[in-house]
C-alpha cells in the first residue's frame, strides 16, 4: 500500500504549482486552471485521509467539492467570455475599469 506521506507530498506539490501559477500568470484562463489545481490538491488530501481511516466522510466531501468546482468553472468561463467580448482580451491587467 502506498504510504500516506506520498499522497500528502503530491498534494502539496500540486498546491505549490497552483499558487505559483496564480502569483505569476496574467491570463484569465490560466488563472482558472491554477485554481482548479489548488482545489484538486485539496481533494486529494481529503480522499487520502479518508481512505486511511474507516470513514467515508472525506470522500463524500470531495465529491461535493468536485461538483462545486465544475459550477465555478462554468461561471468563471462565462465571465471570461463576456470580458473578452467587451475588451477583446482576457489579460486581467488590462481589465481595470473599476480600479481607482
Amino acid at each position, binding site marked *: 500500500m502506498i504510504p500516506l506521506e506520498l499522497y500528502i507530498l503530491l498534494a502539496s506539490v500540486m498546491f505549490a504549482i497552483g*499558487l505559483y501559477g*496564480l*502569483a*505569476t500568470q*496574467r491570463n484569465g484562463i490560466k*488563472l482558472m486552471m491554477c485554481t482548479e489545481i489548488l482545489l484538486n490538491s485539496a481533494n486529494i488530501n481529503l480522499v487520502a485521509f479518508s481512505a486511511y481511516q474507516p470513514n467515508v466522510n472525506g470522500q463524500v466531501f470531495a465529491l461535493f467539492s468536485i461538483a462545486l468546482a465544475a459550477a465555478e468553472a462554468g461561471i468563471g468561463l462565462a465571465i471570461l467570455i463576456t470580458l473578452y467580448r467587451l475588451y477583446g482580451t482576457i489579460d*486581467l491587467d488590462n481589465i481595470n475599469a473599476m*480600479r*481607482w
Partner: protein
Amino acid sequence: MYSDYAYLIVGLPVLAFVLTIFLGWHLPKGGGFFTVLATFGGFILSYGIFKEIYPNEILHQSMHWFANFNVGILIDPLALVMLLMVTFVCTLIHTYALGYMDGDHGMARYFAEAGLFTASMLGLIFSDNILQLFIFWELVGLCSYLLIGFWYRKPSAAAAAKKAFLVTRVGDVMFLAAIVLLYNNLASLNLTLPPGEYLLQFKVIYQNVAAIPPDQLTYIALLFFGGAVGKSGQFPLHVWLPDAMEGPTTVSAMIHAATMVTAGVYLVARLFPLFYAAPSALLIVAYVGGFTALFAATMGLTAFDIKRVLAFSTVSQLGYMMLALGAGAVVGAASVGVSIFHLIGHSFLKALLFLCAGSVIHAVNTNDMREMGGVGKYMKYTAMTMAAGGLALAGFPLTTGFFSKDEILVVAWEYGSATTDFIPYILGILGALLTAFYTFRLWFVTFTGEPRSDYHKHESPWIMLGPLMVLAFFALFFGLGAQEPFYHYLESNFEHYDVNFEALAAVGQHHIEEGEAAHEPFIIKILPIIVGVGGILLAILFYYPRFRKLDTRKFTTENDPIRRILLKGYYQHEIYTAWFAETVVYGIALLSNMVDIKIVDATLNKISETTVAFGGSLRKAQTGIIQNYILAIIFGVVVLVVLIKLWLEVSI
C-alpha cells in the same frame, strides 16, 4: 345580540372605505352606496344597542393592548346619543351626496374619505380610554384635511385644507400634552387597579380626579380644553372653520353637523368630572364659549358667501355648547345634558341648512348671495326645508333649537345668579338675537326678491330632497318629543361610574345649589323667545321685499368703521395669516432653516467629508491586481503558521 357586534359600528365604514377606494373607480356612482349602506348599518347597530341597554345599562368591552394601555368600546348614554346622531345624520348626508357629487371625477375618492371620516368620528365617540380617543381624534383631523382639500387643484381649497390641518394641530398638541400630564399624575398615585382596568380609561380617570393636585388638574383641564378649542373652532382657533367652506358642501355639512366640530364639545363633556374639579378651567370654558357665540354671530351678519354665514353660525352655536358646559360649575352634571342636547339638535338643523345651501349652490353655481335672489320660486322644497332649519336655528318657539338654546340660556342665567357673573348670559342673549337675524337675512336674500343673476332655474333631484325633508322633520320636532327623557338619560351618564360629584365640588370649591332652580323670573323665561322672534322680525323688515320698511343703507354706509371691521372679519386674515403666519412664523422658519443649514448640516457635512477623504486614501491599498492579493494571502498564511508554531513551542 347587537352588543356583540358593537365594533362593527366602526368596522362597517372602514370596510366601505377599503372597498370604495379600491373598487370605486369601476362602480357606478363611485361605489357611494357602500358608504351609505355601511353608515346605515352603523345606525341599525347603534339603535339595536340603544334598545338593549336603555335606560339603565352601559356597554363596556375592552382588551389589553400594550404596557398598561388598552383598546375598548364604551357605550354609555353620552356615547350612545352621539353614535345615534352621527350615524343617522351621516347616512342622510351620504345619501344626499349621491346626488350632489354625481358627475364629479373624484366620486370614489370622496366616498372613500367620507366613509373613513365617519368611521373615525364613531371610533372617537365609543373609545373607552383617552389614548384611543386621541388616535381617532387625529384620524378625524386627517380626513377633514383630505376632504376640505378635495378639489385640490383649486389653490384656495389646498390652502384651506392646510390651514385647517395646521390650526387644529395647535389644539392637538395641547391635547397630547394634557394626556401626558394626566398620565403622569395618575401614575404617581400608585393605584392598584383590578384586572381589566387601565390607567387611562375614563372610569379610572373619573374615580381618581379628586386625588390629583388641584393646580395640576387645572393645567390638565386647560390643555384638554385647548384641544377642544382647536377642534370645535372656538376663539381664537376658529379661523379654519369658515375657510373650510372650500370643500364640497356635503363635506361642510359633515364637518359642521356630525363628524368634526362636535368632537371638541364631546371631549369636554366626556371629561366633565375632570373639568368640574378645576373651577378656573370651567370658568374659561364658559367665557370662551360665550365670547365665541357672540363674536362669530357678528361676523355672520355681513358675510356674503352663503356657506360662510352658516360656518360663522356653527362657530357661534358651538360657543353655546361650551357655554353650557362651563355653566356646569353651578348646575353640575345636568349641563352635559343641556350641551349635548343642543349639539344633537344643532347637528340636525345645521346638516339641513348646509344641505339646503348645497341644493341652492347646485342650481345657481355660485356661493355668493348677491347673485341669488328669488330662488324660492324655482326651488320650493329647498326653500321650505331651509326655512324649517332657519326657524330651528333662530330659536322659534317649539322647534328643536328653541328648546336647546332656551335651556342653555337658563343654565347660563343660573350660573349668573349663583356667581353674580352675568357676562356669559348677556353674551348668549345678544348672540341669540344676532343668530335669528343673520339666519333670516340669509333666507330672505337667497329665496325672495328678484333674481340678481342668470342661473339655472331647477329644483334638485329627489335623492337630495329626501334627506332634506327627513332632517327638516327632526330639526322641527326632535326637541318637542325628546327633550325631557333626553335630559334624564344624559344626567344619569356619570352615575355608572360612581363619580362622587360632591367630593369633586369640594375640590373645585363650587356652591352646590340648593333645591331645584325653578325660580328664575318670568322675563328670563320669555327673553329667548323675544330675542328669537325679534331677530326674525328685524330680518323681515330689512330684507323681505314685500315688508321692507328699513333700509340697511340708512344705518350703515360703505365707510362705516364697524361694518368694515365685520366685513373684514375683525381683520383676522390680516392678523393670523398676513402678520402671524407670513411674518412671524415665516421669519422663525427662515431663522431655523439657517441654523439648520449653517450649524446642524454643516457639522454633519464636515464629518462625512472627513470620512470620505480617509476612505479615499485607504482605497490605494486595493490595487485591483490579483497577484498582489495572492501574495498578501500567502504572506499572511505563512506568518500565521509561523506564529502558531512558535506559540505551540513556547506553551510546551
